[in-house]
């Protein structure tokens, strides 16, 4: 068995432990429940032990019957240990055996897995959601970061193995300094994020946010589980499922009670005793946002510097295995690029809509107010009237607005710049000169005054304005 495969199994087991350890703490009666750390160690040992055993017996070319005997024996051992941890009631032993079966089955699967880079990448994305939910429910954000760190490392190793297999090169990471640097940088980035998170988010805030997340995310899920459980109960009605349902209900009630009492941090983390003041919470959230902005700016700056350096480098200076080694970075960059492009398009659309709203406000100020039932296209002649000689610009802004509001977001930022320029030109246009009616009205009044003696002519509405 190669060391790379063993490392991958270990990392996978570590990642799975992040997802499975928290639910495992619910196992057994309250007195016998596992702590999170113990559950974590149990999962890592069970998964990696089972996987490594499977790989070893297959590699050792053991006959089929003894092989099955060894692996089933392993399951029996895990089940025995889990049942022992679970307490003495029949239902608790049953739950312990079921948990052992899950761990054993997953370990067997890991022992047979090929760990292709694509599969590992998929696990990273999908697993993040699961681990984030479980991590927040257990108020243990470290689970999320541990999962990310382990899976990223697994991704790099899987990629390295894949490249080594395809290109017949040295599979040791440190034989490729550039790659090793990338791995170290990413892992260091994860650790820095973890530290930042610890600084900005203290445990109490994490617990409070976790509570909200529990209510928002887990509650519907728990209802769904309860419904499915009820259906299963209707069909087979075993004691075990009733027990499981009861435990889930207890778990949810405890968290909801904690949330309702406003002292959830204490219940969840068993560390804090006083509720956090709202002012401190707001300050922490603002601090977090500022920290996030700083991190984004730093990352963007670093990416720009790296891009400039890459462009400045002569073409022959690239390492030999660059295409494969860069594939992963390119994939990550393309995801980032897509998100960035989408955000910039949304920004462009919002700006165009704002420009149009300002344009209509300016037109209203100049005397062409849009009737509520008028559409943007119907309003176009009104715009042309108050922005004389700028029909094309008014049309351009209106067309862009229509596309941004009712259609897809604009294709490029160049379009936004063109619209901004058109709006700037429109703003500079002087309002059309409306003939001043005051002198004519004064003359009319004088004429009426002379014919009607001293009788005062009524003031025409709006006579004082143009």
């Amino acid at each position, binding site marked *: 068995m190669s060391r790379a495969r063993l490392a991958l199994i270990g990392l996978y087991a570590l990642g799975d432990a992040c997802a499975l350890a928290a639910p495992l703490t619910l196992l057994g009666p309250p007195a016998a429940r596992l702590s999170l750390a113990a559950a974590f160690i149990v999962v890592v040992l069970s998964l990696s032990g089972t996987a490594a055993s499977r790989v070893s017996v297959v590699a050792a070319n053991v006959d089929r019957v003894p092989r099955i005997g060894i692996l089933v024996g392993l399951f029996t051992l895990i089940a025995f240990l889990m049942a022992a941890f679970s307490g003495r009631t029949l239902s608790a032993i049953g739950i312990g055996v079921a948990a052992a079966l899950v761990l054993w089955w997953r370990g067997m699967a890991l022992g047979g897995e090929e760990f292709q880079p694509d599969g590992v990448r998929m696990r990273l994305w999908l697993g993040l959601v699961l681990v984030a939910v479980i991590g927040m429910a257990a108020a243990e954000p470290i689970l999320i970061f541990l999962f990310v760190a382990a899976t990223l490392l697994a991704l790099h190793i899987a990629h390295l193995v894949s490249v080594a297999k395809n290109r017949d090169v040295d599979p040791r990471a440190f034989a490729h300094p550039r790659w090793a640097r990338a791995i170290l940088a990413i892992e260091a980035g994860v650790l820095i994020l973890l530290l930042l998170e610890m600084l900005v988010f203290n445990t109490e805030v994490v617990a409070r946010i976790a509570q909200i997340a529990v209510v928002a995310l887990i509650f519907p899920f728990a209802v769904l589980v309860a419904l499915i459980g009820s259906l299963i109960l209707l069909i087979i009605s075993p004691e075990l499922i009733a027990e499981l349902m009861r435990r889930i209900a207890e778990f949810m009630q405890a968290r909801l009670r904690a949330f309702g009492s406003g002292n959830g941090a204490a219940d969840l983390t068993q560390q804090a005793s006083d509720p956090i003041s709202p002012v401190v919470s707001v300050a922490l959230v603002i601090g977090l946002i500022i920290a996030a902005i700083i991190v984004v700016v730093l990352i963007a700056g670093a990416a720009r510097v790296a891009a400039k350096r890459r462009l400045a480098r002569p073409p022959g200076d690239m390492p030999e295995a660059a295409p494969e080694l860069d594939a992963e970075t390119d994939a990550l960059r393309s995801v980032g690029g897509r998100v960035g492009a989408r955000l910039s398009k949304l920004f462009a659309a919002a700006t165009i*809509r*704002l420009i*149009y*709203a*300002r344009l*209509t*406000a300016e037109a209203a100020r100049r005397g062409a107010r*849009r009737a*509520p*039932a*008028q*559409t*943007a*296209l*119907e*309003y176009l002649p009104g715009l042309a009237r108050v922005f004389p000689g700028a029909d094309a610009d008014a049309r351009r802004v209106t067309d862009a*607005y*229509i*596309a941004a*509001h*009712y*259609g*897809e977001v604009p294709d490029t930022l160049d379009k936004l710049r063109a619209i901004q320029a058109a709006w700037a030109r429109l703003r500079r246009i002087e309002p059309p000169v409306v003939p001043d009616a005051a002198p004519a009205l004064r003359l009319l009044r004088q004429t009426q005054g002379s014919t009607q003696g001293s009788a005062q002519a009524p003031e025409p509405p709006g006579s004082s304005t143009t």
Partner: protein
Amino acid sequence: MQSVTLLADRLRANIRTVIVGKDDVIDLALIALLCDGHLLLEDVPGVGKTTLAKTIARSLNGVFKRLQGAPDLLPSDVTGVSYFNQKIQEFEFRPGPVFANVLLADEINRATPRAQAALLEAMQERQTTVDGVTHPLPKPFLVIATQNPIELEGTFPLPEAQIDRFFARLAIGYPSEHEERELLARYERADPLLTLQPVAEAAELIAAQQAIRTIRVERSVVDYLLKLCRSTRGAPGAQLGVSPRGSLALYRAAQARSALQGRDFALPDDVKRMAPSVLTHRIVLDAQSRLRNRSAEDILREALERTPAPVDAI
């Protein structure tokens, strides 16, 4: 969306070889066609209702049948009949003219209500039931009906339930002097309808109908459309407002108009432009409005003026 535009351009060009002018009417008819909706052509005699219907029908390479409305028209003349075949000693179904891709129901208001009702199931459910057996109709299935609103003697006005099943009601109107001159010149030697060739296959039309449904209608445009339709219900002078089927028809019509204009998203202008053709025949006036000579168009115009358009403002 380009395929829809190209198909519409081909059909439009073909129809224009027969119909002089009336581009708006042709476009509205094409929109109904692309929305898989039925058309009611209502106008005075001699303006080209039947010619337009026949031109559309012949432009499509499908089965075309004609049904002439008359007081002696029976439901079985529409749907078909089961008769006892003595040779094979079994009942056999002989399909009526409704089993066609395009059915021209000429002078539909001259048929009796029983015969009109035979079309109800066919128009909405695209199937017909004879002797308890349901027969699906071919796809696409389009009914183009014509009626004369002036000459009412010996006619049977279409019931609301049936009128509502028509996607749009169009009036062709008299041509301008220039158009009438062009008409005389074009028909001087021969009737261009006789030499008209089909330019679209039924499958192409079905594909275009599917494509139309992918046109984006932004939430604010949907809200605008709903407000407009709902404001006709209970509007002063209206006994019945626009039905939900009408809202759906207007939604599709706005999508189809967008496609014809080469856009892949609908505008409030599309809703506004299509509303008169798609909605007015669904509004039923109360007795007072009829006495005051108000029309469904007036009620819709007021609704359009009342409904604020979804445009951003500061």
